[in-house]
């Protein structure tokens, strides 16, 4: 059994919050540069060039790329041979978020209730999903999730008879409805299968994959390519001003489901696609 102190978890989370918010992932920057090369609309190219310039400024000055520094979402892979000592992991993650958002000059965007809307003041609670895995690693993956694009996300319980064609249609329709509001070019996370909540969670986790890395399953990889083509044919373009680059990547994750079900969830991430990962 390997020990990791709660203090080490807190420090790691603090650093991840600042890194994810100020340094866009290299795979996402490559996708933005490729989009700049491929975009046909002059106004669309202008938007992409500005996004890349903004990424340089954010990294150089260690300031947030986008003012909406989001929900702090964590996917934790907890090895069966590792334990957190001197504290509880959930509390340690929240403390890291508290420190990272304060010290990193990041906006505190979380309210304690959708009804009374009082700000918690420190961007906690973090949204944490745990996976128990074999081994002695403790892996933390952070996704900074802005609300503008999360608000445009959608889930549908399709029937098996409607099947794959309806699934494709629903993904493209979600992008069409979101239009400029999701701040394109977007990264599209799609979750299919499981019961209701599993599809949504898969869609969110799909966003943490390095941009454009295909699903290892060739059939799903082909589906990703097809969906990307259909989305980029909508014409929405960068910032929604019209253009050929509406999405940078589509990541599909699949899970077993019920004989009566075909759930599909689409989680959108805006051009400020922020994710970072570390093993403790």
């Amino acid at each position: 059994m390997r020990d990791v102190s709660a203090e080490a978890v807190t420090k790691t989370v603090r650093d991840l919050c600042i890194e994810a918010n100020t340094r866009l992932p290299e795979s996402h920057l490559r996708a933005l540069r490729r989009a700049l090369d491929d975009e046909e609309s002059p106004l669309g190219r202008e938007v992409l060039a500005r996004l890349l310039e903004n990424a340089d400024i954010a990294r150089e000055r260690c300031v947030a790329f986008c003012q909406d520094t989001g929900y702090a979402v964590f996917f934790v892979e907890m090895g069966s041979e590792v334990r957190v000592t001197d504290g509880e992991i959930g509390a340690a993650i929240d403390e890291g978020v508290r420190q990272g958002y304060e010290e990193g000059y990041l906006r505190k965007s979380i309210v304690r209730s959708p009804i009374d809307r009082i700000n918690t003041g420190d961007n906690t609670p973090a949204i944490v999903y745990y996976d128990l895995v074999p081994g002695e690693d403790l892996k933390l993956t952070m996704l900074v999730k802005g609300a503008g694009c999360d608000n445009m996300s959608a889930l549908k319980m399709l029937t098996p008879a409607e099947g794959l064609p309806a699934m494709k249609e629903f993904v493209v329709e979600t992008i069409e409805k979101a239009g400029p509001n999701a701040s394109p070019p977007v990264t599209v996370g799609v979750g299919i299968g499981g019961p209701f909540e599993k599809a949504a969670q898969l869609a969110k986790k799909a966003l943490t994959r390095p941009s454009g890395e295909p699903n290892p399953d060739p059939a799903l990889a082909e589906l990703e390519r097809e969906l990307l083509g259909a989305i980029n044919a909508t014409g929405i373009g960068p910032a929604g001003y019209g253009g050929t680059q509406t999405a940078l990547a589509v990541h599909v994750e699949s899970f077993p489901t019920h004989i009566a079900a075909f759930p599909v969830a689409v989680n959108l991430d805006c051009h400020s696609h922020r994710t970072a990962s570390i093993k403790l």
Partner: protein
Amino acid sequence: MSKEPIYLETPLSMDDIEPLKTGDVVRLSGALYTARDAAHARMKEAIEKGERLPFDPDGQVVYFTGPAPARPGHALGPAGPTTASRMDPYSPLLIERGLRGMVGKGVRSGAVIKSMREHGCVYFGAVEGTAALLADCVKEAEIVAYEDLGAEAIQRLVVEDFPVVVVNDLYGGDLYSEGRERWRRSVG
């Protein structure tokens, strides 16, 4: 569509906004007032109670943003636009009182666009993921109302060459729908 920028100084007059057309690239200088969800709800409440607004909207431009905290030495933290449709229920109240411009991102409702055309107001788009760049154009920032709302307080910004694009002009033009139609392709 990529034209030379048009330079405008706030407050804006009808003469300033009448020539603007959807797709025009504009650089704004002068004062912008920040306001988003919570500040708009409070302004609506003030209007309903017959109280004075924190600023007179006549000729002014509202910027839908909730900035991140500023690092020492900066006037303002990163401050890109937020989704404007959430302000749709409130915007006509300010437009009727002379508001000449709004800066945000995303589609506006038919009711807001109608009010803009009736009373003379233009909707400008800024790019959300250029928050650090946009903050560079902000030379001064001062909280004028609702300080308790934190990032959602109303601030008076003084900006220089703040880059925006005309989304909705006074003549029914809409960059989002026109842009999408122009670049839409059919897939096999």
